[in-house]
């Protein structure tokens, strides 16, 4: 057991080290590989966010795109309206990125109290889907503050290289994964798991169900919001279609389930796999790439509904 742990830690360190070296061996500005990895990092962060709330705590949220959009919009609104003061540097401002996670987390707490106290299971899934759409309407109808349908254009003058995107993405992906690892080893993580297993039993053991459900929802929203902020800085044009797209609510579920939800590395595997599929399909079959992605989702869910990690245990059992 101890050996396995050392092995895994070593393996992870090696992979991260490899990812640090990658940009120095390819043409960063033109390489598809860098773009692929950058998107994969963003997916890892949102997938880990869903993993906490949907995978470990078992609250299937279909509204994560609202938090992704909120994160991107927080960054964009602070930047465009100069809310951090005129002299501030907004480009990759760590304070701003953290703030872009805190805002969705606060929203998650505010809406989580009524939603999570009253809705269970499928009904929470439906409710979170409704929530995502309501938030979308607010941004579409937000007038000058949110730029309405056209959204907000960020000053792109600061762009010099893809490198900072790559490394910030890598850092966030590692932090999210390590964060989930430590959360799940703590008392909080055990409470999440207990709620997922059996709410009544968890409650009878003195776990405050609502408190932990909201905490899981808020942690998921925080991760997703920070990823949204990074994506917003990358695309420089934050609008409802780009960041409040339902895809950002569905992709994390897909990646978690594909890799194996409620595991530490499942979402990472799922994210890299799907990012690879998206990038390859985009590059080679530009016309029909969503068809391929859709067909792939159907095939994977049909033949390995418990994901890649689940496949291993299924094979062992058979």
């Amino acid at each position: 057991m101890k050996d396995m742990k050392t092995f895994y830690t070593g393996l992870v360190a090696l992979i991260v080290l490899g990812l640090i070296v990658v940009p120095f061996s390819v043409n960063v500005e033109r390489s598809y590989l860098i773009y692929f990895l950058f998107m994969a990092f963003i997916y890892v962060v949102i997938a880990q966010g869903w993993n906490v709330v949907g995978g470990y705590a078992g609250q299937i949220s279909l509204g994560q795109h609202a938090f992704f959009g909120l994160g991107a919009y927080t960054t964009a609104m602070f930047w465009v309206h100069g809310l951090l003061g005129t002299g501030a540097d907004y480009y990759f401002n760590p304070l701003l990125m953290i703030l872009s996670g805190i805002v969705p987390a606060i929203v998650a707490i505010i809406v989580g109290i009524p939603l999570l106290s009253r809705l269970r299971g499928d009904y929470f899934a439906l409710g979170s889907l409704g929530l995502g759409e309501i938030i979308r309407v607010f941004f579409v109808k937000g007038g000058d503050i949110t730029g309405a349908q056209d959204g907000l254009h960020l000053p792109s003058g600061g762009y010099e290289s893809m490198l900072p995107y790559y490394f910030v993405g890598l850092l966030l992906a590692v932090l999210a994964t390590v964060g989930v690892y430590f959360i799940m080893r703590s008392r909080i993580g055990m409470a999440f798991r207990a709620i997922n297993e059996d709410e009544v039993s968890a409650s009878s053991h003195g776990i405050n169900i609502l408190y932990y459900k909201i905490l899981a929802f808020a942690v998921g929203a925080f991760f997703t919001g920070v990823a949204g902020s990074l994506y917003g800085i990358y695309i420089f044009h934050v609008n409802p279609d780009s960041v409040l797209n339902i895809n950002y609510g569905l992709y994390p579920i897909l990646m978690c389930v594909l890799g194996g939800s409620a595991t530490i590395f499942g979402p990472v595997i799922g994210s890299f796999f799907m990012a690879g599929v998206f990038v390859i399909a985009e590059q080679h079959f530009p016309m029909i790439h969503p068809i391929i992605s859709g067909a792939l989702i159907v095939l994977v869910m049909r033949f390995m509904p418990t994901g890649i990690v689940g496949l291993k245990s299924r094979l062992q059992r058979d």
Partner: protein
Amino acid sequence: MIAYLSFELIVQLVVNGILYGTIYGIAAIGLSLIFGTMRIIFLAQGTMIILFTYFGYWLLELAGIDPFVSLLIVVPLSMIIGVLLYRSLFKESAEMDDKNASLLLAVGIMFLVNNLMLVMWSANPRMANTAYTEVVFSPMGITIPFTRLIALGLAILSAGLLTLFLKKTYLGMAVRAASENMLYATLVGINPHRVNTVAFAIGIGLAGVAGIGVLQIVPFDPFFGFTFALKALIALALGGIGSVFGALMGGILLGLLESLGSFFVGGGWAEAVAFGAFLLVLMFRPEGLFVRSVKKA
């Protein structure tokens, strides 16, 4: 805005809401059957509806078959597609406790069909034109398009037929029993696969009916499907899961909310009103507004 307000206008808004809402209602009945028996949130329902709208469109454009005659082709075809969907894709995942797989299957189908339609028919909005598309009745200064009236008739007819099937036939009763409690239904000898197949056949069959209904009412494009699925979900929540009448009424209520909402609070906000009502109903009356007894939480 209030200056324009007149009695006729209010009546017109209400009529529009009801006529449009019945289409949501049929879509919601299909969802209700699938959700009731298998606890699957079939997000692809709206996309299937638009797919059948395009089928109807093709039959009209290529073979000159009147949309309402093409129901005879589209509905059986959609039921077969429903059976195939269940047999080939949902059979295993319907049995699992974890509903992620079936939800994602629906999402995958949505992506796949949506983009297939995009490639085949492009993103240009289309609308069917027949000799009677422009026919309008105007009793007492209220405008009622003939096509919408037929859609209303179709909705009521299919809801009625479905109710008869569920109440009077053996198979229908089995479906109802299974939506009440699948485990007990299985214990008294009901074959879950058969019930699920029937639910899927009827659910997608109703998507066929709704698809033909949409054909002459609004301009449609492939992306319309997802919005439609969301609307059907709202209608379902408003009306209550597991009740044909409730789902139909939920659709009509949603139609009214949208029609009156877009007049009083403006186009985009009406959507927020509809989703707000959806959340409130989910929270405070999860059994729906039109179901008298509380059977399920």
